[in-house]
């Protein structure tokens, strides 16, 4: 059972990455865009006379923005392509559930998005002499895992809406901007209006990101980190649970509407 699951994960990832190998658009999205975001952000921050903690937001924010955009766009693109190419019907009609396939695809896209974070860090380190000397490295690693899990859980949740109909993917793409805005990808959450901070409290990435910022600065207490990791984990699990519930609804709906195919 586990071996079969691992084989499926390996095969699906292999297929995903090989299909995307020569897709210049996604390469730019994952690598160049976050590097530019981080670079521009840090130039502006330096010009304003800021050192840490603003630099931390620039480094993480650019990388995270790349990861998030990459996940939203590539997941939407993958489903749209499969719908257009007649693959979606074949996957739905196979014994493996579409939800499982989408979960692995999203995981692939999220892990591939780590390249974005790497690109942002490289720009910060090579151009702006950014250092991890003060960082709580285990805290950074755990926070990063929580961010990945949060993005994955939200990605799986959103994949249901992309599959839902031929046009719904476009609406999912609208979320590219509001989520980074609400979660404070490139600035401290404290500068947002209270209502926006309240709204962002349901997004797991926000909590994991705050923990990551704290761990990078190396000044936050363990209680702070644990509470934020706990919230991130809890909210991610809620999104994942909702995804599982939605999966059955979407499966039935597309078999009623016939929207698995583009023609």
């Amino acid at each position, binding site marked *: 059972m586990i071996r079969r699951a691992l084989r499926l994960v390996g095969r699906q990832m292999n297929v995903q990455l090989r299909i995307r190998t020569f897709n210049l658009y996604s390469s730019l999205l994952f690598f160049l865009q976050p590097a530019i975001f981080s670079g521009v952000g840090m130039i502006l921050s330096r010009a304003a006379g800021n050192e840490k903690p603003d630099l931390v937001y620039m480094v993480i924010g650019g990388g995270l923005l790349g990861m998030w955009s990459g996940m939203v766009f590539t997941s939407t693109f993958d489903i749209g392509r499969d719908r257009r190419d007649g693959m979606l019907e074949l996957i739905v009609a196979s014994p493996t559930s579409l939800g499982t396939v989408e979960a692995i695809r999203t995981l692939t896209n999220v892990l591939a998005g780590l390249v974005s974070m790497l690109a942002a860090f490289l720009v910060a380190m090579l151009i702006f002499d950014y250092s991890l000397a003060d960082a709580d490295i285990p805290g950074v690693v755990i926070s990063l895992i929580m961010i990945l899990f949060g993005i994955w859980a939200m990605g799986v949740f959103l994949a249901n809406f992309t599959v839902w109909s031929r046009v719904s993917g476009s609406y999912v793409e609208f979320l590219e901007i509001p989520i980074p805005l609400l979660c404070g990808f490139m600035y401290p959450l404290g500068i947002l209006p209270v209502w926006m901070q309240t709204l962002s409290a349901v997004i797991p990435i926000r909590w994991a990101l705050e923990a990551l910022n704290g761990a990078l600065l190396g000044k936050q207490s363990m209680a702070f980190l644990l509470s934020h990791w706990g919230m991130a984990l809890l909210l991610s699990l809620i999104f994942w649970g909702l995804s599982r519930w939605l999966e059955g609804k979407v499966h039935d709906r597309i078999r009623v*509407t016939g929207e698995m195919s583009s023609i």
Partner: protein
Amino acid sequence: MDNDAIDARELHKVFTTRVGFWSGKTKTTVAVESVSFNVRRGELFGLLGPNGAGKTTTVKMLSTILLPTAGGASILGLDVVKQTQAVRERIGFTFGGARGLYGRLSAADNLRYFAELYGLEPTVTRKRISELLNLVGLADRSEDRVETFSSGMQQRLHLARALLHDPELIFLDEPTVGIDPVGARELRKTVKELVARGKTVLLTTHYMAEAEELCDRIAIINKGRVVALDTPAALKKRISGDSVFDIEIKDCDLAAFQGQLQRLDGHLSIQVTDVDPNKKISIRTPRREEVMQLLAPFLSSQQILNLEVRNQTLEDVYVSIIQGEAA
């Protein structure tokens, strides 16, 4: 019945689509009105019909891709709505055209991917891929990217994909569409081999000769309903004894010619098509000798440019039934 591979009972499918984003208005399309038929195990069953008749929608309902709006169906004794998963494990299907493969992957990698979706063990996967690529004549191209394949090769690869998990029942939706005659013949040969191995096949096609050559029984479907169902021989007997005259005549002689044919009004049916600059007239009649006598003067005066007299084919039966429905 338990012995049936497919038991379709008054299948009905309606698609409802929204018209415009804000209006909230909907448009309803009846794709399948009421389709009932059964396919015995080991049978090669044909589903024929014009474009938009509901063939593909019927196949998609039977293969669990679509849910019927009403009616029901059993596949190998399993309900397509309630036992979806079990049905999926036992059937294979292909849809016509080049869609349904990853062009950037090789033939073998496409098959490996689907083998994983169908939960095949690695040893079985290797064996099946090798066997199937040989069966469909793609063994020497197994590591080539699918985007470099011709339509015929892609269709054959589709067939290999459909057979990966050794299904008992295979749906082939227009498998020879867009394939050259040699490729189509090879594919028909493969389909025959599958039936010889005990597989049940449901085939939809536009090609009457293909249906006549392959199918044990045929259902003709039109406007979402089964309008005829029988063996090809029995279907042809429906208008048995009739002869078909295919005549090419100069356009200017058409009126005089039709005037002569009016003498046999009620005993023949005529279909006229343009073959620029002439006309092609197809006459179906049980009164072969009388038509020959009427044609004699036109033949002697060389007004008839081409004449072919033949017995009814399945295509004639099909056209007769579909035109009868239209009338």
